[in-house]
């Protein structure tokens, strides 16, 4: 069983469209994250949720809206897609949200490659 699964793996869409990416973790973790990896492979945190509560919200356009229906799921909805949104989006989860300890390992999904045309 995949620990952190994201769907879809690939997403090709037109500028201006609205799209969603789904993420589910079966590890029983309390914290989930969304990261964006650009074409230069730079990985930057976007959001972090702990027990369905938003705890980190980086400088991300408000066209991006995360939603956590329960602590096993964290979805990402993007409105009015722009060319600059093209990137690979990674979902991750960890046992808790407190730092990078020996126990607080982040497990990443395989990524969703978004291409905006």
């Amino acid at each position, binding site marked *: 069983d995949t620990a952190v699964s994201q769907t879809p793996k690939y997403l090709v869409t037109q500028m201006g469209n609205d799209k969603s990416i789904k993420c589910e973790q079966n590890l029983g973790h309390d914290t989930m994250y969304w990261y964006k990896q650009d074409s*230069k492979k730079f990985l930057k945190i976007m959001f972090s949720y702990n027990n369905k509560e938003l705890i980190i919200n980086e400088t991300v356009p408000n066209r991006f809206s995360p939603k956590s229906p329960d602590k096993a799921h964290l979805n990402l909805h993007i409105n009015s897609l722009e060319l600059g949104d093209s990137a690979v989006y990674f979902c991750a989860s960890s046992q808790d949200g*407190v730092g990078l300890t020996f126990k607080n*390992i982040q497990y*990443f999904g395989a*990524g969703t490659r978004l291409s905006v045309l």
Partner: protein
Amino acid sequence: TQLLEQSPQFLSIQEGENLTVYCNSSSVFSSLQWYRQEPGEGPVLLVTVVTGGEVKKLKRLTFQFGDARKDSSLHITAAQPGDTGLYLCAGASGGYQKVTFGTGTKLQVIP
């Protein structure tokens, strides 16, 4: 904004060679991790270091956390083609222990 600069950005070496990747910052981190990412996959954790000056070994990989907890290095001995991938360092700091990833080092080991 905290920044973790990795060097080199790209590295292409022959199998059997040794290499060192550096992760530097002007900020202090409470802990630091190294990840390896293969094409089409998410990053996978290699090691966590939390004490300044700490050295950890994972088979042919040696990780060191700087004394001031601002920098780290990854040394690979006798590199193998299976070591090929993107290596990322990541540091945690601040009240919410926000994770900042490094700029990445793309390693290619040629058989």
